[in-house]
C-alpha cells in the first residue's frame, strides 16, 4: 500500500491551507470554497482507504512513518522523534475527524458569509492539528499538535458569532492553555523519571512506562492527575467544563460542530492513550473516582439542561453530559465498557454535530435560539424536522440508531465490572441509567418545543418564497440537506452495524485491558 502515506494524510490540509492563504491563489470566495470543499471530500475518501487496507488483527501500530528534517530526526539528542502511526483506536478517530471537518466545510457555504478567505484555511489547519494528535507516537509531538490546535480554534470562535464570542474565545483558549501547562508538567516528569528507570532517553509512547512500581504511588498519582486535568478541560469533566460550554454555545454552527465533534474527542483519546495506557495501576486505583466524576457529569449537566431557555445551550450541555458516560465506561475496567466508551465517543460526536447543525439551520431562518419564541417549526421546515427526528431519536437512544448501541454497551460494561463492593457498581449503574433517561428527556423537550406544536404567527411565512426581504429566510438548501443526510446516515449505519466499528479497535482495547489486568 505504497500510496497510503500517513504524512500526506496529516499534513496535506495544512499545505492546502497555506496555499489558500498565499497570494498566488485567486482572491475569489467561490473558488476558495469550492477548492477546499473538493479537497476535504478527497481527504475523507483517502482516509477511508486507510480503513480498507487496515489489518484489525495487527497488535502494534500500522502505517508507521518518521518525519525527518534535512536527514536527521526532529530532536535527536533528546530522543524526541517525529514518529507517526495508527492503531485501531486512532484510526477510527482519524476517519471521524476527516468526516466532521468535511461536513463543517460543506456547511460553511450557508453559515459563513464574511471572511471566507480565512475560514477554510483555519478549519484545515485545525484538521491537521487534530489528526496529528490522534496519530502522534511521541509525547512531545502529541504536545506540539495539542498546542497547535489552540490558535485556529481561538480565531474560529472569535471571528464569527455574536458579541459574546470574543470573551468566550479568550476563556476557552486560556483554560485550554492552563490545562496544557499541567500536561507539560506531567509529560516532563514522565519523560525524565522513565529515563531514570530505563536509562534510555526516549519520548516514544510505547517505551514510556510507569508501571514498574519503582516510584511511590503518590508520585505516580501526581503525574496521573496532571494528565487528567489537562484532558478534563478538553473532554470536559465537571467542574472544568465551563470553557468548553461557553465556547460551544457562543460560536456559529460549523464551529460548534468542530468543537464538539473533534476537540472533545481529543480529551477522551488523551485519557485512553496516557492515563489508561501509561498508568494502568494508578488508573485501577482511581477508577471509582472517575466513575463518580462521570456520574456527577451526567446528572449535573442534564439537570442544568432542563432549565436552559437557549436551545444551543441545551445541545452543548447534552454533549457534555454524555462525556460522563464515557468516563463511566472507562472506569468500569472491563473490555466491554472500554469498547463502549470509544464507540460512544464516535456516536456522540456525530449526534452532537447533527444537533448543532439543526440549531444552526433554525437560527439562520428565525434569528433566535430562545426556546419560548420557537414552536411548531416542523410545519414550516418539514425536511429539517424529518432529519431532526432521526438525530433526536439517536440522541435519546432508540434501537437501530447509534445512541442505543453506545448506551447499551456501556451499561453492559458497567454491570460486568468487578470493582468492589458490588453495591457501588449497582448504584453507579442506576445513576448512569438515570442519566441516560434524563438526557433523553431533555433532548425530547428540545425537539418537542421547537418542531412540534402550533407555529407562531411570526414564523408562519418562513416557507414563503416570495418573501425576499431577508435573503436567508429561504427553504432548506442543498448543503444543509447533504450535511444532515450524511450525519443521519452515519447514525443509522452505526446503529445497525456497530460491529463494523467495534471490530477495528477490538484488538487494541483488549491488549490494553489485558495489560491492566495482569
Amino acid at each position, binding site marked *: 500500500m505504497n500510496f497510503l502515506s500517513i504524512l500526506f494524510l496529516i499534513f496535506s490540509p495544512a499545505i492546502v491551507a497555506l496555499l489558500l*492563504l498565499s497570494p498566488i491563489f485567486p482572491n475569489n470566495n467561490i473558488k476558495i470554497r469550492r477548492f477546499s470543499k473538493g479537497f476535504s471530500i478527497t481527504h475523507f475518501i483517502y482516509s477511508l482507504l486507510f480503513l480498507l487496507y487496515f489489518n484489525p488483527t495487527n497488535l502494534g501500530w500500522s502505517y508507521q512513518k518518521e518525519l525527518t528534517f534535512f536527514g536527521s530526526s526532529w530532536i*535527536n539528542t533528546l530522543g524526541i522523534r517525529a514518529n507517526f502511526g495508527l492503531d485501531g483506536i486512532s484510526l477510527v478517530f482519524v476517519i471521524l475527524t476527516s468526516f466532521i471537518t468535511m461536513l463543517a466545510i460543506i456547511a460553511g457555504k450557508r453559515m459563513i458569509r464574511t471572511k471566507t478567505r480565512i475560514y477554510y484555511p483555519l478549519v484545515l489547519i485545525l484538521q491537521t492539528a487534530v489528526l496529528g494528535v490522534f496519530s502522534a507516537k511521541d509525547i512531545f509531538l502529541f504536545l506540539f499538535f495539542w498546542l497547535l490546535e489552540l490558535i485556529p480554534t481561538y480565531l474560529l470562535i472569535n471571528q464569527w458569532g455574536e458579541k459574546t464570542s470574543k470573551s468566550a474565545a*479568550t476563556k476557552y483558549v*486560556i483554560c485550554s492553555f*492552563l490545562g496544557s501547562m*499541567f500536561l507539560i508538567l506531567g509529560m516532563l516528569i514522565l519523560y525524565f523519571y522513565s529515563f531514570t528507570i530505563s536509562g534510555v532517553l526516549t519520548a516514544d509512547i510505547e517505551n514510556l512506562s510507569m508501571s514498574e512500581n519503582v516510584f511511590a504511588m503518590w508520585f505516580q498519582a501526581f503525574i496521573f492527575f496532571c494528565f487528567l486535568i489537562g484532558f478534563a478541560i478538553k473532554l470536559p469533566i465537571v467542574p472544568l467544563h465551563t470553557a468548553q460550554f461557553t465556547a460551544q454555545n457562543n460560536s456559529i454552527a460549523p464551529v460548534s460542530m468542530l468543537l464538539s465533534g473533534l476537540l472533545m474527542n481529543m480529551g477522551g483519546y488523551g485519557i485512553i492513550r496516557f492515563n489508561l495506557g501509561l498508568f494502568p495501576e494508578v488508573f485501577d486505583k482511581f477508577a471509582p473516582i472517575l466513575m463518580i466524576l462521570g456520574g456527577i457529569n451526567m446528572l449535573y449537566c442534564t439537570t442544568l439542561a432542563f432549565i436552559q431557555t437557549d436551545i444551543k445551550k441545551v445541545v452543548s450541555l447534552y454533549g457534555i453530559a454524555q462525556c460522563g458516560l464515557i468516563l463511566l465506561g472507562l472506569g468500569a475496567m472491563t473490555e466491554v465498557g472500554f469498547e463502549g466508551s470509544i464507540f460512544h465517543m464516535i456516536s456522540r460526536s456525530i449526534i452532537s454535530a447533527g444537533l448543532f447543525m439543526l440549531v444552526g439551520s433554525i437560527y439562520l431562518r428565525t434569528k433566535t435560539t430562545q426556546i419560548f419564541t420557537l414552536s411548531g417549526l416542523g410545519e414550516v421546515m418539514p425536511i429539517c424536522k424529518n432529519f431532526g427526528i432521526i438525530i433526536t431519536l439517536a440522541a435519546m437512544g432508540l434501537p437501530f440508531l447509534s445512541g442505543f448501541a453506545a448506551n447499551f454497551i456501556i451499561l453492559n460494561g458497567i454491570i460486568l465490572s468487578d470493582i468492589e463492593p458490588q453495591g457501588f457498581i449497582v448504584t453507579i449503574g442506576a445513576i448512569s441509567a438515570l442519566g441516560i433517561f434524563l438526557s433523553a428527556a431533555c433532548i425530547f423537550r428540545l425537539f418537542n418545543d421547537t418542531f412540534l406544536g402550533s407555529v407562531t404567527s411570526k414564523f408562519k411565512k418562513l416557507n414563503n418564497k416570495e418573501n425576499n426581504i431577508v435573503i436567508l429566510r429561504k427553504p432548506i438548501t442543498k448543503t444543509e440537506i447533504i450535511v444532515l443526510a450524511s450525519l443521519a446516515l452515519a447514525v443509522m449505519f452505526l446503529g445497525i452495524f456497530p460491529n463494523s466499528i467495534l471490530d477495528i479497535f477490538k484488538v487494541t482495547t483488549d491488549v490494553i485491558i489485558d495489560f491492566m489486568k495482569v
Partner: protein
Amino acid sequence: MDFLADIRWAFLPELIIITFIFISAFLSLFFNKKLYKTSQWIAISGILTSFASIGFVQAEPTYFAFNGSVVCNVYTVFFKSLILIASFFVILLSKEIVKKKREKAFEYFALLYGAILGSLLMVGANDFLVAYFAFALLGITSTLLIGVPQKYNTKIASTKFLLTEIFASSIFLLGVSYLYIVVGQMNFDSIFSALSGYQGGLLLALALIFIVTGIMFKICATPFANYAPDIYKDTTAPVGTFLSLIPIIAGFSLLSRILLLTSDFVPLVGVVVLIYALITMSVGVYGAITQNNIKSFMGYSTMIQVSFMLLVLGVIKPYTLSALLYYLVSYIFMNIALWAAVINYNKNNISDYTGLAYKRPFYTLAVIFTLLSMIGFPPTSGFLAKLFVMSAVTRLGIIYLVFILIMLLLTVVAFFAYLKLINTMFKKIPNPIIEQERPVFSKITLYFCSGITILLCFYSSKIIELCELISYSL
C-alpha cells in the same frame, strides 16, 4: 611579539570594532552632512568584517590572551557571533535615526560600536577587572545612546539609566571585593582552582550573590528590572532593540560562566537566581497585562523572556547549559522580529494596532508567529526553547517542581498578555485607513526573523547538537 600574537589569535573581532569606532568618530567630525547616508553601510561593513574575522581566531584549544585576562574558546566565539548577528540587525533597523538625526549619524554608530565592543569584551573576559571594564564601557555608551535624540524624555531616560547603572555596578564591585577577600584572586581560573576544596561560607555566598545581583542589571532582571519599560518607552525604538538584545547576551555569557564555575561550592546562589526569575516573571506579566504603550510592553516582554533563561541559570550544569543557549538563539530572532514590527508600524499605543489584520494581513501573520513564539506555541522555536528550559529544570530533581509549577501558571498569565495584542489586531474597525508605504528594511527584517523562528523549530536537531557541544566544551 607576545602582545601581537594575542591580538592575532584572540582579539581580532574586537580590534576591527575598535578600528571602526575610530573611523566613525573621525567621519563624524567633518562629513556628517555630506555622507550621512553612507554611515549605515559603513557600520554594516564593520560588523560583517568583524563577523568574518571570528573565523580566524583560535577557538580550539582554548587560547588565553593578555596574561590570562582574556579567553578565547568555542563558548566565547559562539556568544560573540550571537552579539554580532544581533548588532547587524540593530544597525539595519537604525535607518530611522539616521534619517532624522543627520548631523549625529556617525556619532550614533561610533557609540553603538563602543557598546558592541563592551559586550564583546564582557564575553571574552576571564578576569573580574576586564569584566568590570566591559561592564562600565557598555553602561556608559548605552547611556549616551539612549540620549542621542536629545529630547526632554530621552534625557530623563538616560539619567535614570545612568543612576541605576552606577548603583548596579557598585554592587557588582562590592561582590568582587568580597570574593577577593575570600580567595585573593581576580582571574576566573585561579578563583576556580582556589575554591576547589573550599568548604563554603557566608562571605563567599554573599560575594557571589552581590556579583550576580549586579549583573542582573544588564539582563533586565529583578532587582534592577524596573528601568526597562520606562527607558524603552522614552528612547527611540532602535536603541530599545539594542538594549533588549546585546547587553542581555553579554550578561548571560558572563553570568553563566561565573555560576558554572562556582555554583557547586555555593548552592544558595542558584536558589537566589530562581527566586529572581520568579519575581521578574511576576512583575513582567503584571506589567504586560496592564500596559498600553507598545514599547513599554516590549520591556515587560523582555522581562518575561529573560526570566525563562534565568530559570536555567538557577540550576546551571554543563548538561543544562544547552537549553539556555538554544533559548538565547531563539530569543534573539523573535525579539528582533517583534521590534522590527514596532519600528515598521511606527505607532506608540497598542490601541493603534486595531484592525491591522484586515489592512496588512502578512504583517499580522508574521507578528502573530512571533508572539506565539514568545508564548511558546508550536510551530515556532519558542515552543522548543521553553520545553528545553522546563526539561532542564525538571531533570535536576523533584524539589524544583515547585518552581516549574509556578512558572507554568505565570506563563498562562503571560499568554493572556500576548493574546491581548493578537486580539487587538483582529478587532474590526469600520473604515480601514490606507497606510503609506513603510520602511523596507524593517519589513524585510520582520519577515526574515519570523521565518527563522519557524525554521528553528524544525531544524532544531543540529542547533541542539551545536549547543551541547559548546556546553560540554566549557
